């Protein structure tokens, strides 16, 4: 089998099993996309995984990980006004970061066109909320296409690109987690490489590009007119499909992954409702929808997250004085969670109890299984950090977490992290909590990628306004949680080596006067540093540094002559204090039935950061075996 990078550049048509996120990259290649920018965030990083599977020299477009989503959007905008088809992609909440730029895009004449790929996360599988980004689309007059499957993700990207190019506008391709990550066999079209066009086509006459005063209204008018044009095309678009089951009384209107759930739960019904599956979800194809409404007595809107389509078609039906009964969300539970087949079953059963039989729930014996929250990996420098930092803190102190692997410190046994908001928010939230507060120390945490992403303004503010907090920067040298992408502090970008921006230099440049540094494996030193930092009146920063051990260990394993390492507990020395398993909490330590503690050899990486945590000194490295 060809490697992914080669598949994506195959010139002949072919078919392959592919994840939605990977298939998108083939669509970019075929569509002639020239500039792509992103900031990593689930459910989208596998798009970058596929992009980087193509060697940088062979890649038919430019790609970068930008410092944050707003910057990525601006890179794509700049490229688009210069005549290139561009794309920015990131996760749902990334659009909040990008929004200041994003909401202006539709006002502009994007000469080359721009597709924004959004990975929304109904079910909050890996996000702090399940925000419905269709709201942003309405606010910014931006069309949205929404695929239901990987094959559609591939096809819809090309449609989105065609729209964007034709109307010189931004178009959103809205994906959700299980569209991004589903896999199926997809037929890909042929592709002919195009020569690079190096002409910068920016021309002020194609503007205006300065949306001020009198220019704003015509620009807004043009954006609305484009939206009308897109709607007209949507009415005839094959992206909206009718599943005609010959039911004149009941219809279901749906879009995206919930469509597949509807198909799943209605497949065994003798009389299946008709289904109108929307692919162009903003602006809605009103003519198409009106026809569907007129053809049915009752229409249920099966809509994941918020009631956007529902509201719009109810007002449409009101204006046209339609008699069709439109059933939207009937209770608040219908606003919550991913519309899996199970969820859609419960939604539809409430709507039409007669269609769906009661499921007999036998009185099956169920056993409680302890939950398994995500954990810091064995050897993780953050674990040593939390273990050491906790010793410097009072119970009443307030710890503010930020986004990243270190967020997991809020879990027992560490319980460091009382609040969490979003990327880079910790310093300023902590600063606010330090006001009118002489008794409880405030400690904020920040990862290094997040430091560059959105952390700086809060730190500058703390210097500028003389806030009294301690910030601990957890520097592991990578963007770990999303799969080890490089950031500006690393000295390498996704394409090439680059100048490193050291965290410390930046802090010094900002004017932070009290900076402490320690490798987190030096736990006593770190405890001492944090104590010193807490004693500072004003802003103090501790850089708690250790490379991501998951990444480090993976790299070590690939080296010739690599030997596995691990630690062991000497049962004759162990006094059953349980600090290793219950306070340090490395998942390697396992409680045996007889009360002893053992090391799980499948998990231990032999980093030895645990050795210093044992008061009895019972943990030691296993001697190398031949």
């Amino acid at each position, binding site marked *: 089998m060809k490697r992914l990078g080669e598949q994506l550049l195959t010139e002949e048509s072919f078919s392959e099993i592919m994840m939605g996120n990977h298939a998108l990259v083939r669509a970019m290649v075929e569509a002639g996309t020239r500039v792509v920018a992103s900031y990593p965030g689930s*459910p989208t990083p596998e798009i970058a995984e596929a992009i980087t599977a193509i060697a940088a020299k062979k890649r038919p477009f430019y790609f970068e990980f930008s410092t944050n989503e707003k910057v990525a959007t601006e890179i794509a905008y700049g490229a688009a006004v210069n005549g290139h088809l561009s794309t920015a992609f990131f996760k749902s909440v990334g659009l909040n970061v990008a929004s200041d730029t994003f909401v202006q895009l539709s006002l502009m004449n994007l000469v080359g066109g721009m597709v924004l790929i959004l990975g929304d996360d109904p079910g909050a*599988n890996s996000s702090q909320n399940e925000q419905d980004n269709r709201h942003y689309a309405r606010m910014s007059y931006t069309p949205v296409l929404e695929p239901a499957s990987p094959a559609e993700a591939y096809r819809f990207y090309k449609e989105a690109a065609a729209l964007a190019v034709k109307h010189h506008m931004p178009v959103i391709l809205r994906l959700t987690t299980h569209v991004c990550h589903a*896999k199926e066999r997809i037929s890909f079209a042929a592709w002919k490489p195009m020569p690079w066009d190096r002409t910068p086509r920016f021309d002020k006459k194609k503007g205006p590009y300065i949306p001020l005063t009198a220019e704003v209204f015509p620009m807004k008018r043009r954006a609305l007119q484009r939206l009308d044009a897109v709607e007209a095309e949507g009415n005839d678009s094959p992206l909206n499909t009718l599943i005609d089951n010959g039911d004149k009384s009941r219809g279901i209107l749906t879009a995206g992954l919930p469509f597949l759930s509807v198909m799943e739960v209605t497949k065994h019904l003798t009389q299946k409702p008709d289904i109108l599956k929307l692919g162009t979800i903003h602006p809605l194809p009103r003519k198409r929808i009106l026809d569907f409404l007129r053809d049915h007595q009752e229409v249920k809107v099966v809509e994941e997250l918020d009631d956007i389509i529902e509201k719009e078609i109810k007002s449409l039906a009101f204006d046209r004085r339609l008699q069709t009964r439109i059933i939207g969300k009937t209770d608040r539970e219908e606003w919550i969670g991913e519309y899996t087949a199970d969820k859609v079953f419960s939604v539809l059963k409430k709507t039409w109890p007669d269609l769906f039989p009661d499921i007999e729930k036998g009185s099956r014996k*169920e056993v409680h299984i302890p*939950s*398994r929250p995500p*954990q810091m990996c064995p050897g993780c420098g953050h674990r040593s950090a939390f273990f050491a930092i906790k010793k410097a803190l009072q119970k009443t102190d307030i710890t503010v977490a930020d986004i990243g692997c270190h967020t997991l410190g809020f879990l027992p046994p560490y319980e460091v992290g009382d609040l969490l908001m979003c990327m880079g928010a910790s310093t300023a939230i902590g600063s606010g909590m330090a006001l009118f507060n002489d008794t409880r120390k405030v400690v904020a945490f920040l990862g290094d990628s997040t430091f560059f992403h959105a952390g700086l303004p809060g730190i500058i503010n703390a210097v500028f306004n003389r806030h009294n907090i301690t910030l601990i920067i957890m520097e592991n040298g990578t963007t770990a949680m999303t799969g080890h992408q490089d950031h500006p502090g690393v000295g390498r970008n996704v394409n090439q080596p680059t100048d490193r921006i050291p965290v410390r230099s930046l802090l010094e440049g900002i004017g932070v006067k009290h900076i402490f540094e320690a490798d987190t494996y030096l736990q006593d030193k770190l405890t001492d540093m944090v104590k010193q930092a807490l004693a500072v009146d004003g802003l103090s920063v501790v850089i708690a540094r250790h490379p991501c051990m998951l990444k480090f260990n993976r790299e070590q394993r690939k080296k010739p002559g690599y030997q596995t390492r691990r630690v062991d507990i000497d049962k004759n020395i162990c006094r059953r204090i349980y600090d290793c398993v219950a306070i340090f909490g490395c998942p390697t330590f396992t409680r045996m039935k007889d009360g002893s503690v053992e090391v799980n050899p499948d998990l231990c990486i032999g980093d030895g950061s645990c050795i210093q945590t044992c008061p009895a000194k019972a943990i030691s490295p296993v001697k190398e075996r031949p």
Partner: protein
Amino acid sequence: MDEFNVYLTGVGGQGIGLLSEILIRAADRTGFHVISVDTHGLAQRGGIVISQLRMGDSVFSPLIPAGCADLVVALERHEALRGMQAFLKDRGALVYYDAVWQPLDVRLKKASEVGKETIAELCQSRGIREIRVDWPSLPDARMQNIVILGTLDAYRLIPGIDTAYYEGAMQDLMTEKMLEGNLSLFRNVSARLKDKPK
């Protein structure tokens, strides 16, 4: 075929990703319609990792409805039980590698470890075919997924997938030493289990 659902589960780092990639490619060779979906992102850090594989003509969503899996495959004991309780049909099949990666509450002594006897009892009460796998001589814990693959082959647990399809899928995804090691383990496991049917 109408529908066959395989629910795979384990802990981040156990190799569910590779196992599921081999399975979808092996299943694709049967000619049946196949879709799958894996967990990515945050949950992979020592949390539960799930992969769902669905085969058949009347399969739409990549997500298996609760209680609709024909086969639950697990790489860890607690996750075997969790997957089985939420997804496995009565009289379905459970295959699990009997590794224990203690969940947080067990390590904190707030809950007790699930015993293999508990799983056996529950399987028996629901008519579930239980196949517990352990391969003590394994050189690398990350090969437990291949032991599972050999087991699926030996007992023909997924309809339509022949040995050649599993091997073809492995050849698609691996090269050189990795392929050699895994293929020989796969054949070894499959042959030894075929010799002594359950």
